[in-house]
């Protein structure tokens, strides 16, 4: 199943490399990894998505915690959350096809962010599935260029996690019992 980790790390040189290297070293296969600033200065937040079972997910979590620069790890696979991906698409758009493309963009609640004589650049955000289908529908017009950010995620509700909790219970990082 899809496991989504929110990983808070110290904003220091080489930290992205440490995280990526850990996944490589342990043969954990990353589907998507994004990184950016957080509300707290000096702390970056990664969203790491991988397709694996819960047992492996706990091992990933435990291994991430072993990295000295990792402050907090949370797997939101079993929590209510918002997950978003963003795509920029440069699509061939002639005088005739442009209205149709604009319509499609509207259906996907996307935006046209640039228009030239021959092409348009479209921005769509949403779940991975939504973006996949937008791409599918736009494909026949001719996709010239595409870039996706990869997924970013946030858990729902009021219990905003502390970036660096004082204490992490071992059971939170050690895989639980197997019956």
């Amino acid at each position, binding site marked *: 199943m899809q496991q989504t980790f929110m990983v808070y*790390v*110290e904003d220091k*040189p*080489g930290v992205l*490399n*440490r995280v990526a*290297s850990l996944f490589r*070293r342990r043969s954990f296969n990353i589907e998507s990894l994004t990184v950016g600033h957080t509300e707290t200065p000096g702390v970056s937040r990664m969203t790491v998505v991988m397709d694996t079972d819960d*047992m492996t997910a*706990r*091992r990933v979590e*435990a*291994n991430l*915690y*072993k*990295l*000295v*620069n*990792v*402050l*907090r790890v949370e797997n939101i696979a079993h929590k209510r959350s918002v997950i978003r991906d963003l795509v920029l698409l440069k699509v061939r758009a002639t005088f005739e096809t442009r209205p149709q493309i604009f319509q499609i963009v509207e259906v996907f609640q996307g935006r046209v962010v640039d228009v030239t004589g021959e092409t348009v650049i479209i921005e769509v955000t949403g779940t991975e599935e939504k973006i996949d289908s937008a791409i599918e529908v736009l494909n026949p017009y001719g996709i010239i260029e595409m870039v996706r950010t990869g997924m970013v995620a946030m858990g729902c509700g009021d219990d905003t996690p502390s970036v*660096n909790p004082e204490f*992490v*219970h*071992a*059971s939170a*990082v*050690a*895989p*639980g*019992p*197997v019956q």
Partner: protein
Amino acid sequence: MKKTGAQLIWEVLVHEGVDTVFGYPGGTILPAYDALLDYPIRHVLVRHEQGAAHMADGYSRATGRVGVAIGTSGPGSTNLVTGIATAMMDSSPIVCITANVSSAAIGSDAFQETDVTGITLPITKHNYLVTRTEDIVPSLREAFYIARSGRPGPVLVDIAKDALQRSIEFEWDDTPVRLPGYRPNLRAMPEEYERAIEMINSARRPLILAGHGVMMSNAMDTLRRFVDKTNIPVAMTLLGLGGFPASHPLNLGMMGMHGEAWVNTAIQEADLLLAFGMRFDDRVTGNLKTYAVNARKIHIEIDPSEINKNVRVDVGIVGDLRETLEELLPKVAEGDRSEWINYITDLKGDSAVRDIQQLPDTGHLYAAHVINDLWRLTAGKAVIVTDVGQHQMWEAQYYKHDYPRKLITSGGLGTMGFALPAALGAKLGLPDEEVWVIVGDGGFQMTAAELSTCAQEGAKINVAVINNGFLGMVRQWQEFFYNRRYSATPMRSPDFVKLAEAHGLTGLRCTTRGDIEQVVAEARATEGTVVIDFRVEQEDAVYPMVPAGADLHAMIRRPYSPLVETSDDPAK
């Protein structure tokens, strides 16, 4: 007061209580070597930086303190790599300090520039690239703290040359190291303890698997009280040997690929395994699918990522082993396990008869005899540092370790060439201890250059070369699994006696069993490092053997041999 970055290194080391470092100079690290002369620290000039890392490792395993290795940029730091990986696999706390080219030149492929932090990223617990003089002290203090806390391990600090040369205003600041993301000592939920106690108290055929963690957490005494109360027998991992006395009636011996047959059988038949500070390496489990399928499993381990890594467990308790056992001890019930213990005793069956110690003395010299005699003659009290191969397994089987931290061996990485430098490190850490190296003719030649270091340092260690003319362990695999096709395993060696003498040391030779005692006595009485060339049986094999990946109970046993008298008593 103003200090150069180079001086700051030694300031930290002195504060950390470091008395000895192992290293090799070069262009970029020169400023540090210049400053060294003004500090009360002994520097051991190694003959290869791999030796420096192994010495730091041996020093650390013998003393429990952090060992320090030093190398220059480029080849100086890449030569450390094998030693760092060795320390990583066996959770040995060492700090490696390397210099790199000046910060402005980093990334330009400058002369002797290597990305050593990149190279060592997966084989260190943590590492640092320091480009500012201001960061030298904090990085090094953190390095020592990280190396020795939690599950220990190697930490590397790579410092740019200009950061060593610059001076800054410096006042020692004793505020404890603060690493917000580093959580060395996690604690388990109380429910985990409750479930463990319930399982222990209701088990009929429980078995303790004691690993390196016993010594790492100083849990020797606690484990003993735990065993004496519960009467649960104990099986040992290679790195666990010495954590629980070999002579204790409930110590069954070593488990795994070359473990005792009855130990492996007992594991397969147990109804509860208590894994204490060990990590279910494939060399101890064999085929995971058939491993201890009848047993529930409790895993007590300081590193949460080890729990459920190889073997799925019923209860995982993350924490320091000693603290955890102290917590459990009052709550576990006293147990009478005589039925189970008698059963295991019966499993020993004809094992004693098959034992190589029973071979008649036909004038041949067997490695197992050398090692068993060495145990007897040193009353089991020497620090034994082994290399990797057959001799290592025979040591584990025939040198009965009653005391902790007296066996130093490369378990996880299996690094040939480890023994001699690690032994020198151990000796310099514990100058009053008797230190013996047990090494194969192959492994000895990997780092024999460190004999020169032994001579220069005036260190007294005894080197027992178990010389069988082969890369013995590999030859054994070829014998068992490759139809005796001895590809690249016969090895010609120099005259080890002359080699010792060329270093200004003493060389001795032993070719028959009857001479072992006298040769050992001579080595012990001789000043300075002694090399003994034990010319042993060439094609002997280590038994029992679980072939790699086979079921743990599928052991190849030693063929029968006639019974003769042997000595089991170290006092004799």
